[in-house]
């Protein structure tokens, strides 16, 4: 039982990370039809940039973090929208999706060649201790991940539902044409979702990197789990992405513990096929009518 609780907490923690990535992915998909295949690399890169800033400028950790994070949000929030999505979207959804694949290769190889091919330690902002709860030893880092991730997701929910700006963004996501008629600056709202996506990726990156270490290839696994989380939750639901992330995280943790740790990556495939066969619209999704 104690063991089970420990695995459950670990699963919720990694699930919260997948949820952060999946929510950003879903937001960007909703407002701009961009299927971002580089989403995993978006979570991998901020940590690498922070370490790079520390290494290059000899800056203290807080300054390095500031430079790295600012650079990331500027390049992969605003820059991604302006330089990749805008010129590409007129050709349609498929070229854009392929462009994000090219982007993922550039980010991955760039991190490998420009930074390091080896995994690097990333400073943790909480002590790497474990505490004992009901006999289960639980890592403080996992607790911190859960607290921070849920706080961020809560903040996002409040922003989207409770503020004027957030509601404008939601309107843009649901129906850009009507939003434009109502005088909402649609372009700016779309840009805002890209910035939020980059910010969520930063949070996920800073939370997960002390555990997984900063490595160029981390994005593959995180991306895969984030996509699956988005689909499991219901492809265009922010709430669904949260639920999907948690489900995927917990199932992954349990499978690694009780089935086979070397085949934990098979879990998403199984989960995906099961969802597609049984509930294709996702756990939280509604049946979607396709318009011609």
């Amino acid at each position: 039982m104690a063991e089970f609780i420990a695995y459950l907490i670990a699963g919720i923690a990694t699930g919260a990370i997948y949820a952060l990535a999946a929510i950003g992915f879903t937001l960007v998909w909703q407002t701009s039809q961009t299927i971002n295949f580089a989403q995993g690399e978006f979570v991998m890169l901020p940590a690498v940039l922070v370490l790079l800033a520390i290494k290059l400028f000899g800056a203290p950790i807080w300054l390095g973090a500031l430079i790295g994070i600012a650079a990331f949000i500027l390049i992969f929030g605003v820059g991604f929208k302006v330089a990749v999505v805008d010129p590409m979207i007129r050709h349609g959804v498929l070229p854009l999706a392929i462009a994000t694949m090219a982007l993922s290769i550039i980010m991955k190889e760039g991190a490998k060649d420009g930074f390091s091919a080896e995994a690097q330690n990333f400073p943790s902002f909480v002590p790497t201790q474990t505490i004992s709860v009901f006999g289960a030893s639980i890592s403080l880092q996992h607790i911190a991940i859960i607290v921070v991730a849920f706080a961020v997701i809560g903040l996002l929910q409040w922003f989207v539902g409770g503020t004027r700006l957030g509601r404008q963004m939601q309107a843009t996501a649901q129906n850009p044409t009507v939003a434009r008629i109502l005088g909402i600056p649609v372009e700016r709202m779309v840009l805002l979702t890209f910035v939020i996506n980059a910010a969520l990726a930063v949070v996920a990156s800073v939370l997960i990197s002390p555990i997984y270490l900063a490595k160029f290839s981390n994005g593959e696994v995180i991306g895969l789990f984030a996509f699956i989380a988005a689909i499991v939750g219901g492809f265009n639901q922010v709430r669904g992405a949260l639920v999907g992330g948690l489900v995927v995280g917990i199932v992954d943790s349990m499978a690694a513990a009780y089935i086979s740790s070397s085949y934990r990556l098979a879990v998403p495939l199984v989960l995906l096929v099961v969802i597609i066969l049984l509930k294709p619209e996702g756990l939280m999704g509604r049946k979607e009518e396709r318009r011609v």
Partner: protein
Amino acid sequence: MTAPATEGSLPQQRGRLARVPSLAAFADGILITLMLGAVILWFAPAGMGRYGTYVLSLWLVTSIAVMGLNLTLGYAGLKSLAQAAFMGLGAYATALLTTKVGLNWYTSFALSGLLTFAVGLVLGFPALRVKAHYLAFVTLAFSTLIWLILRNEQWLTGGVFGLSNIPRPSLFGLKLDGALAFHRFVVIVTLILAVALWWMIRSPWGRAFTALRENPIRAASLGIDTRMYTLLAFAIGSAYAGFAGALYAPLVEFIDPSPFSLSQSFFLLLMVVAGGAGYLLGPFIGALLGVVLPEWLRVVGSLYLIIFATIVMLLLIACPQGVSGLLERGWAKLTGKGKIGKTVAGKSVAPNTGGRS
């Protein structure tokens, strides 16, 4: 893929009647190019040495995998992110069947194709039941799974140490162990597979397929079973990857999991786009850029992948039809049919790349 308009025909008249002969003329041009290319490649390795010959063969083998993916992506508009994994499946199947089971290469080749075709059907069926872009995620996860199996099941695949001493086939009692002899064998197989694809695209089946790409809803209302056709396209595309793998294994004579990773699948997809998705000859251009060019640009080393990806992104912005599209534009300008050529290109390609996936 539509042919430039036949001389003198008004745009309005280029309906069903005028279109078929012009398409046939264009396709014959493709067939002639394929034959000529095969003859050139038959003699090309003269004076190139063992390694140069190997690179040429590798180019053709990669082209086969890219051809298959072109059918999936360029003609059916489906994103498959497991082409390298399917190639790995074919390569390992052939390696195991020839070394451990003792079958000859031809049987192994056929079985590899059959296996990847069947796996394609099994993977594609649930995914295409829902939405076309779900296939991307199913194949993404499948890629990871294949990678895991290749690496973990040491008793079968040799794990990271791979499988070695994969024999090369013989033809009519002739041993094909030499680099040149095997290269020529690869040329023949590539030609057969390319012509088969050319024939498929031209057959009624392929026509239904083009209809599907140009206007899926119209195709469906004409009674074309769109799900069956897209599924078949994906399965055949995957089978081509299996064929490519079956040639790859004896070509390099040693296989390990690394050339079949997810990154490689992405890379193959970028080759399709670089060469021109939906163009029969596009895959050869794409594979040339992806496989042969880095050999010439040895100095840039591992940066090549970044350069290649950047080029593809720029191509996607400037000309989503890839190098084939650029060539077509250039040709249209040269022959003074710039205007017509452009509208034709725009008409044929826009639904292909712009369709909701």
